[in-house]
């Protein structure tokens, strides 16, 4: 293995990590503020990707596609919150799981009905296509580098929103004590809709950005959703900082595990068996990381113990 390959894979891991962060941040916000487990978050990711692919395909503009993804996911999120989710905040977790599972079925099959079973494709914008040469002579796709930049920018934006703005103050207060915030005259119902739409827009953005390097198809959201759950469990529920650290850890573990584990096992196994066992272990590495964190800190790295 060459250092260049290793650096490339580290960058790939970072890129995967920041996209996971966009998903996990929305989930953790929605859980932290409203106490809701939202399985349908992956559907919002899918809606973002489909909206971007459809609009970019029709107009030829990637930027318009991104705008459409944000708008469609936020609108779908707000609609779902008002129609269904609002009734679930005080419900048992089982009801939340079941209702949001039902939403996945409706969104997935509805999308299949509207767009068919064949995947759509979203082209990388011309300005961001092709490789870029990094210091040290490493060639790396410009688009993936842009994804890392976009993810970091969103992370900074979220930090600014939650700690430096009035809306962020209300969100944090709502997570602490919803009755008190309502008693102080904040319209808590609207606040919840806004937070849900914000989380949905982040998921839609992630779907659209990733949609340009993967195919856009029904069911694309759920594997990402489950990894985002792993991120939240590792980082601690309700903590955006935890989501960021957890997302980078998961992204790097997933990418580097597939690269390093077979070589590592080859030190004390024969080659064929090492490749077999290595790829099997690599597919489980993220979950083993989660298990280790659970043993060490059951409430996650930045979570408050219950």
């Amino acid at each position: 293995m060459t250092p260049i390959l290793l650096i490339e894979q580290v960058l790939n891991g970072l890129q995967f990590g920041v996209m996971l962060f966009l998903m996990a941040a929305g989930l953790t916000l929605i859980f932290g503020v409203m106490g809701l487990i939202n399985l349908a978050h992956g559907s919002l990711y899918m809606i973002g990707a489909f909206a971007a692919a459809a609009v970019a395909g029709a107009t030829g503009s990637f930027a318009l596609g991104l705008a459409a993804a944000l708008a469609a996911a936020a609108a779908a999120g707000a609609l779902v919150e008002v129609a269904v989710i609002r009734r679930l905040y005080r419900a048992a977790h089982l009801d939340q799981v079941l209702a949001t599972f039902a939403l996945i079925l409706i969104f997935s099959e509805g999308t299949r009905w509207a767009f068919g079973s064949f995947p759509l494709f979203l082209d990388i914008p011309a300005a961001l296509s092709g490789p870029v040469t990094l210091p040290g002579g490493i060639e790396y796709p410009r688009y993936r580098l842009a994804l890392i930049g976009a993810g970091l920018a969103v992370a900074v934006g979220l930090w600014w929103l939650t700690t430096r703005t009035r809306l962020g103050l209300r969100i944090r207060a709502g997570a602490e004590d919803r009755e008190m915030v309502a008693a102080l005259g904040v319209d808590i119902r609207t606040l919840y809709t806004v937070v849900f739409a914000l989380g949905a827009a982040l998921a839609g953005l992630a779907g659209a950005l990733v949609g340009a390097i993967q195919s856009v198809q029904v069911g694309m959201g759920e594997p990402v959703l489950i990894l985002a759950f792993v991120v939240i469990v590792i980082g601690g529920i309700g903590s955006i900082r935890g989501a960021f650290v957890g997302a980078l850890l998961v992204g790097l573990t997933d990418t580097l595990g597939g690269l390093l584990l077979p070589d590592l096992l080859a030190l004390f196994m024969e080659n064929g068996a090492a490749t077999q066992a290595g790829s099997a272990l690599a597919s489980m590495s993220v979950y083993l990381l989660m298990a280790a964190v659970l043993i060490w800190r059951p409430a996650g790295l930045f979570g408050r113990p219950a």
Partner: protein
Amino acid sequence: MRLPEGWVTAAALALLPAVALWAWAADEPFTITLATRAAILALAAVGLNVALGIGGLVSLGHAVFFGIGGYAMGILAFHAQTYAPLEIGPLTIAGTRSMPLIWLVATAASALVAWLIGLLSLRTSGIYFIMITLAFGQMAFYFAISWTAYGGEDGLSIYVRNGFPGLNTLVPIQFFALCCAVLLLAVALQWRLRASGFGLALDAARQAPARVEAAGLSPRRLKLAAFVLSGALTGLAGALFADLNRFVSPSMFSWQLSGELIVLIVLGGTGRLAGPVIGAALFVALEHWLGGLTEFWLVWLGAILLGIVLFARGGVVGLLTGRAGPHV
């Protein structure tokens, strides 16, 4: 409606055998296969109901045990089929085509894995528990895909259904009778369990863990025991399901299946004795009937589920008995 729950339970348990006998008399083997499928899914849901209905553990990863049961059958029958014994280190194990042996391995293996997963995930509760069981389910799914020795992504076909002493399992009605008998035994076990000291303590651990703790019992150990029993039953169902299809694949580990098992229970009625049986029968009927009407039947299933969660708590049993929750 206000029917006594005992009547509803008896009617529900008589339903599947009645449908299968009618189909046998009318010579409709496909309907018998549908009834067998419903019986096996009901068995898996009875397993989940022990953890979810009585113990209050919302496990979104029960497909792990279903898949382990399936692969226990697949691996043992595969080695019997190829006449190549299974070698694990110094151990040499011959494959087998005998259902009782396969069931033993399937329940033991799923119980062991349930113990491991339970040990880790019961360190947490509530929403963490849901996400962690879901994540372990996904881990098993990806492991099965990357495990090429047993077919990897393509799965594993078993050409002849395994045997049970005294029965010809290739005859649909006989295989149905076997699955139905196992299901009835499991329902009886669940009934005895609820009335037992362990069941009462578990029920209490769901409702008031602090009081159970004060009474000198450990809620976590009670829940762990329930989770292990639950996993073992669902694993047994997985072995039967694999025998029904004569095929195992990673899809038996999929998170959709875990979700569907929860759906079965809630459709029928959470924590109710007959809930899983009614839910599974209804699910298979909807799948067959709606699936024949439209390719997109899952949209309608989703709408029905939303309706149940928002407006009809207690599922079918709740509607029939006029009570949203099981009486304790």
